[in-house]
């Protein structure tokens, strides 16, 4: 076993896959223009961060329709409060905090009516694997993802937010702590507990299927 450093831990997550990973100065420029009422600049911010916000909401809520509602509300809050945003800070962490708060509010106002089984969990489109020779592998991977999403939904709210930010979004522990308003020690405790729970959930489900 070879423990990794923080820097190494970030590399598996392809942080450059989204629009939001463009140079921060360009984002700051957009923020400045959007604050001045430039709707085009605001639309550009939505374009850059839309994928990140929707993906985070999906992992926190587990359903694409609710995630879309959360993403919409997140951007509307951004529009409403952009005037108060400190331009010297990065927009990304602020958006993460907002989407987590929005998801929490949504979950509190309208909790899922019943526990969703793994089979019912939504599955995203997989255009690259559809019809491919290794379709069975792709199916297995899809099932694994649904299993992990189901495991995520069993976690307490704070543990889920911490593990989504750290392991799925690939943010450093220090940044996760700042986003969640917790200490790094607390975040480390939450993510270690969450990882163990996810491992046990997956193993338990796999055992029951055999």
């Amino acid at each position: 076993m070879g423990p990794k450093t923080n820097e190494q831990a970030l590399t598996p997550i392809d942080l450059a896959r989204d629009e939001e990973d463009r140079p921060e100065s360009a984002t700051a420029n957009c923020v400045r223009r959007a604050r001045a009422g430039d709707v085009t600049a605001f639309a550009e911010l939505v374009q850059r961060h839309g994928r990140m916000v929707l993906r985070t909401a999906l992992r926190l809520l587990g359903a694409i329709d609710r995630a879309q509602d959360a993403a919409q509300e997140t951007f509307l809050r951004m529009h409403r409060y952009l005037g108060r945003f400190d331009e010297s800070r990065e927009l990304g962490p602020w958006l993460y905090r907002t989407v987590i708060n929005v998801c929490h509010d949504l979950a509190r106002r309208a909790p899922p009516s019943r526990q969703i089984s793994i089979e019912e969990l939504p599955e995203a489109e997989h255009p690259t694997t559809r019809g491919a020779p290794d379709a069975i592998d792709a199916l297995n991977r899809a099932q694994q993802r649904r299993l992990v999403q189901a495991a995520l939904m069993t976690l307490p709210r704070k543990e889920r937010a911490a593990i989504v930010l750290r392991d799925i979004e690939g943010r450093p522990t220090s940044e996760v702590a700042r986003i969640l308003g917790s200490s790094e020690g607390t975040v480390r405790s939450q993510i270690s507990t969450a990882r163990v729970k996810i491992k046990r959930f997956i193993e338990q489900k796999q055992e029951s299927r055999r």
Partner: protein
Amino acid sequence: MSCERYERDIALAAEGDLPASQVAALEQHVASCELCHSFAQGIAASQATLKALADEPLAEAAIAAVRTRVLAAVTERAQPRWSGPRWAWPALASAALLLAVALFWLERAITTTHPATRAAASAVPATTPQPTASLTTRSTQRAAAAVSQSVRTPKKAPIARLSPEDADQLARAVVVLSRVKELDAEGAAEIDRPAVTSQPLTRIASDDPNVVIYWQFDSNGG
């Protein structure tokens, strides 16, 4: 030795979250403990699956739908919006209220104590037969006080209960006060205009003791 406490460290070390000072001791334990070695392998497998969620493609249509909904909502509320601090609106409302009250009291103070009031009062002759006393500053103030009192406590001191003398004074006061306002508007120099001094005031009594009509003639006799 209990391996339970190592589970937490193994879970942290799997993604490089364990402090470097503890890594060596953990590796040494995992190398010698079959249970922890197995646990570490299990954590590595579940973490790989967990992190695969990050690579799961999101349907572009889902993202586009959010973008469309957001921009539609923003365009709808595209009116210029106040972006100042949240306390600004209540503060502005309070300031406006204070200003309105201050203006109200200032106007009252001017109409009862302004020198123009006294000057205008002496400029209006009393031509009504009963009572015939000239309107003085004191009587004007008394009448104005009666108006003020009736406005403040209309149920306790209704205008209908004024004595005929007070009613006359009240009517004259109303005339004087209205003239003072005109003078304020026209300028202090206008206060000695002859037209003011020639305006007679006529009292017309009706059958109803509570109804008294006052008629003021202008300089043209109209």
